[in-house]
């Protein structure tokens, strides 16, 4: 495999100005993998600050309703309300290891922005969060939370004022001060080594889930379902099950931003991957109500796993997502994030499709407090 590639996907399609930063990051990433004190500190923060391990919850009511055993990997219980903190803590420590003073990042749903601000705070770095103006309007609570936690929210008006534009703006801010700044990418996207770094810091999800399902059921699941766009929570849980070829790995993207279903291979924000585009590699219109899925590209590793058939892709539409939100609230007393609801929609579609003893794990990636306003308005 060529450096930084997963099959034909990945690479480094960035301006020359970023070359030294990616080089430094790559070296730093290799170093921390073997650095004992780094790993100890990361583990300490994961357990004591983030609250890991998260539980693997047997969803009894859902199981009865669907006719097979359903477990939720409860990433919504991670401090901050989603899996995003796993990666944010790892990268904030990596930034500190590299001697950086500032963190810049972008956020759409706000979950990654909140997680990054928390991580920067606990590690002792300053944090600036770029957020599209449309997303600030949609996710007011999280934008305010970021500021409360000591982060600075920078509204992005460029382009369409959504996630992809916030990514561009964060990158520019990074370019202007590479020496002191780390760009903390929140999903398994962007140029190498970012997809590898994010997957590395998220793999704890799958490692825990695999151990927990053995303890509870003494066997492996038939399927693992996760939602996503870049794919950080999905890769986080899939990695532990990749070698078990009999386990179906299902990925659910937003119908309104479905780069696997409606996109093609192209270049987007530093990487070669599946992206929504026209015949000239532009015009990436997305309209998913789940801000965290409203990204026109998939991560390169996920794209590779999809291209070889190891991961199967499905979609869920905004309409079905709302149904899943209320259904989950009624069935289990849980409020999933709109993003997570995409995976839940796919789970419900499988009613009666497995044997009663079969186990399916759903990665419950985030909690839905942030979406309550929208849900109340629409339900």
């Amino acid at each position, binding site marked *: 495999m060529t450096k930084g590639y997963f099959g034909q996907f990945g690479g*480094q399609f960035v*301006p*020359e100005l970023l*070359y030294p930063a990616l080089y430094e990051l790559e070296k730093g990433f290799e170093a921390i993998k073997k650095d004992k004190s780094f790993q100890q500190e990361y583990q300490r923060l994961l357990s004591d600050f983030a609250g890991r391990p998260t539980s693997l919850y047997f969803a009894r009511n859902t199981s009865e309703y669907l006719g097979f055993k359903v477990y939720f990997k409860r990433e919504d219980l991670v401090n901050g309300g989603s899996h995003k903190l796993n990666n944010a803590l790892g990268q904030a420590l990596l930034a500190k290891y590299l001697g950086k003073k500032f963190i810049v990042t972008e956020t759409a749903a706000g979950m990654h922005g909140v997680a990054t601000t928390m991580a920067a705070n606990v590690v002792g770095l300053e944090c600036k969060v770029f957020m599209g103006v449309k997303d600030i309007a949609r996710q007011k609570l999280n934008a305010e939370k970021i500021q409360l936690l000591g982060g600075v929210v920078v509204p992005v008006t*460029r382009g369409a004022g959504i996630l992809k534009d916030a990514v561009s703006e964060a990158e520019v801010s990074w370019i202007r001060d590479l020496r002191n700044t780390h760009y903390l990418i929140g999903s398994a996207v962007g140029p190498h080594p970012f997809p590898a770094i994010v997957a590395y810091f998220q793999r704890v999800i799958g490692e825990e889930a695999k151990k927990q399902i053995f303890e509870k059921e003494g066997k492996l699941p038939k399927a693992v379902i996760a939602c996503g766009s870049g794919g950080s929570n999905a890769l986080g849980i899939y990695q532990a099950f990749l070698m078990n070829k009999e386990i179906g790995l299902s990925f659910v993207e937003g119908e309104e931003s479905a780069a696997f279903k409606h996109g093609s291979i192209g270049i987007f924000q530093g990487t070669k991957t599946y992206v929504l585009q026209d015949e000239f*590699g532009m015009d*990436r219109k997305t309209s998913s109500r789940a801000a965290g899925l409203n990204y026109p590209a998939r991560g390169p590793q996920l794209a590779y796993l999809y291209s070889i058939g190891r991961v199967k892709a499905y979609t869920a539409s905004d309409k079905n997502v709302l149904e899943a939100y209320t259904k989950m609230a009624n069935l289990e007393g849980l409020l999933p994030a709109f993003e997570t609801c995409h995976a839940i929609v796919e789970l419900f579609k499988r009613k009666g499709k497995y044997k009663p003893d079969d186990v399916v794990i759903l990665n419950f990636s985030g909690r839905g407090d942030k979406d309550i306003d929208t849900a109340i308005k629409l339900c």
Partner: protein
Amino acid sequence: MLITHLYYGDPNKEFSDKLAETLLTSGSDILEIGIPYTDPVCDGEIFQRACKRAIRGGITPLMVFDGIRRLRERGFKQPIYLTSYYAPIYKMGLERFVKLAKSAGVSGLIIPDLLLEEQAELRKVIARSDPDSLSIIQFATVYSSRERLKQIIAASTSFIYCISLPGVTGDSGNQYKLLKLLKTLKSLTDKKIFVGFGIKSGKDAKEILRLGADGVIVGSAIARIYKEKISSPEKSLPEISSFIKSLKDSTIKRKDKKHD
């Protein structure tokens, strides 16, 4: 040397045709024509808006090739470089893109997001016909190490595009780092060094040439003039023409001094 850049189709192709002609007849030695792109990460606000206006107006890469072809038909012989982010090139297909560029009369490709390490495929496609017919311009930056500069110089078959500051087009920066970069480049190569990003006036241009550059690349400063009159941009052409003439003046005076 004076190099000027425009995003083709901003706000429409008729204006871009006239603008290109004004730039070339007012003293621009080389022209860079850009393909408007939806996510121009290396560009500051002025060029972001230029891209947005052009795309909203319906410009496609194919129309940019047509524009270049028309300039050639009208007899302009100056080198014309095509600027494009890599996404359109990749999606249109490397073979097709290279063929279109060559037949339109493009001298070289300036791709701001294609590192040396990712150029092999494109190089292979260009080499299939006449490898010298289309150069890929290499970038040097104030962040580049000496080792990296050596790689960049070795890969370069034309001028070296030197980015004056750590930022995006239209930014302002300090020239201390640029001086160091130019000194290093000059000690390593005789290849032409053109400096771009943030050059706003004849004074800036003169200063950068004094630091050792062989030419300056000016883009956002031109778009800044016509964006004030965007509903009838033709009205700004006389002002643009005198701006280019003054820039040209400041690039020539240096040569005169040298000959003294």
